[in-house]
């Protein structure tokens, strides 16, 4: 529970309210699985659960992408190179990158949801021969709100990945897709009987994406979603992130749609 103290190596602005921090993981490095998260500590302000958005093979550089929405996340987003930061982790269950080997992979990201998915994308691309077709479908509110745009453009130039991007609204200068990200699922090429889907974004977007994937024939237990709840202890003790019988910090954040389906529509949760 005691955070490690580290230094910010670099802070870069991704969007108007989104920053990515590179943190020095120290001489012993840091090992995590794609989809796991850390508790980041802004000293004197507080702690927040933030997904790891970097490459899991880069053990010396710990990368987090943070949207400045509250007191703690704003303090974290304001950190500059050389500033001290606390972190503890990694926590939680990550993306099923190993179970997905041999299958087609459909990755559906909405808004900032691309950040927790990026380590999984790095993984499948670095081990491309272990997977079937790969479809990366990413949605944002408007063109200016597209996270990791340069990387999306790079991935799009590859012949072995089907990258599709869409925005909810655009003016006539935008020459790409317009429409919600779930509309891209119908257009993607994958074998539904041999597909693992990884979905991350706002909860309602994930629910609609899962419904669309199921309609396309992907079984619910092959559709993985990353849930977000107010995490405090991150070790399944305090109950802040409780979702029915689950603690999202310990049993998630990644779980199957089969498991989450009923819970996602309960108003009390």
């Amino acid at each position, binding site marked *: 529970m005691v955070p490690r103290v580290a230094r910010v190596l670099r802070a870069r602005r991704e969007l108007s*309210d989104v920053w990515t921090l590179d943190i020095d993981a120290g001489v012993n490095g840091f090992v995590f699985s794609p989809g796991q998260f850390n508790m980041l500590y802004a000293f004197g302000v507080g702690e927040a659960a933030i997904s790891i958005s970097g490459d899991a093979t880069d053990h010396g550089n710990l990368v987090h992408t943070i*949207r400045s*929405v509250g007191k703690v996340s704003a303090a974290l987003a304001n950190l500059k190179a050389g500033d001290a930061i606390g972190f503890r982790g990694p926590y939680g269950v990550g993306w099923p990158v190993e179970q997905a080997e041999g299958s087609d992979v459909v990755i559906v990201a*909405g*808004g*900032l949801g691309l950040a927790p998915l990026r380590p999984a994308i790095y993984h499948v691309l670095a081990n491309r021969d272990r997977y079937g077709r790969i479809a990366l479908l990413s*949605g*944002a*509110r408007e063109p200016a*709100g597209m996270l990791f745009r340069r990387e999306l453009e790079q991935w799009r130039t590859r012949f072995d990945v089907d990258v599709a991007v*869409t925005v*909810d*609204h*655009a*003016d*006539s200068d*935008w*020459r*790409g*897709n*317009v*429409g*919600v990200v*779930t*509309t891209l699922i119908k*257009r993607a090429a994958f074998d539904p009987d041999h597909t693992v889907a990884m979905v991350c*974004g*706002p909860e*309602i*977007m994930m629910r*609609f994406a899962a419904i669309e994937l199921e309609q396309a024939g992907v079984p619910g237990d092959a559709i993985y979603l990353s849930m977000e709840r107010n995490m405090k202890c991150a070790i399944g003790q305090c109950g802040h992130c409780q979702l029915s019988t689950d603690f999202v910090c310990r049993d998630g954040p990644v779980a199957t749609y089969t498991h989450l389906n009923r819970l996602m529509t309960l108003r009390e949760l």
Partner: protein
Amino acid sequence: MIEGMEKIVREHRFFADLDDDMIKLIAGCARNVVFKAGQYLFHTGEPADEFYLIRQGQVALDVVAPGRSAITFQTADAGEIVGVSWLLPPYRWMHDARAVDLVRAIGMDARCLRGKCDADHDVGYDMMMRFVPLLVSRLQATRMQLLDVYGTPA
């Protein structure tokens, strides 16, 4: 000529599962159309007399409000349909449709098809069963857009 059109209609994803008789019936209302980039397929308020099965290219669906530039709320690609207002009164387009790049499409004469739907309710039922899911999925998409799910939480 009609035979060629039957083949083209059958190749389109939206009508791919129709039987031969139905394809023949529908192909009688179809023609090939091409739109250059920037050209409009139709404008808001115009009679919905022809809808389009996109074969190539992308079409932007725009809404225009006075004093504001056009907002694109959806794009349609190859294999998709542009235009659903032809099916129900008042048979007028509710938005603009603009070719983003070179668009090749099958133009379906809506009056012709409505006539066939009226004359043979099996045809009408089939069209309804194809277009209603399209309307429902667009309604769902609009709900998600209205929710502005990517917005910063208050």
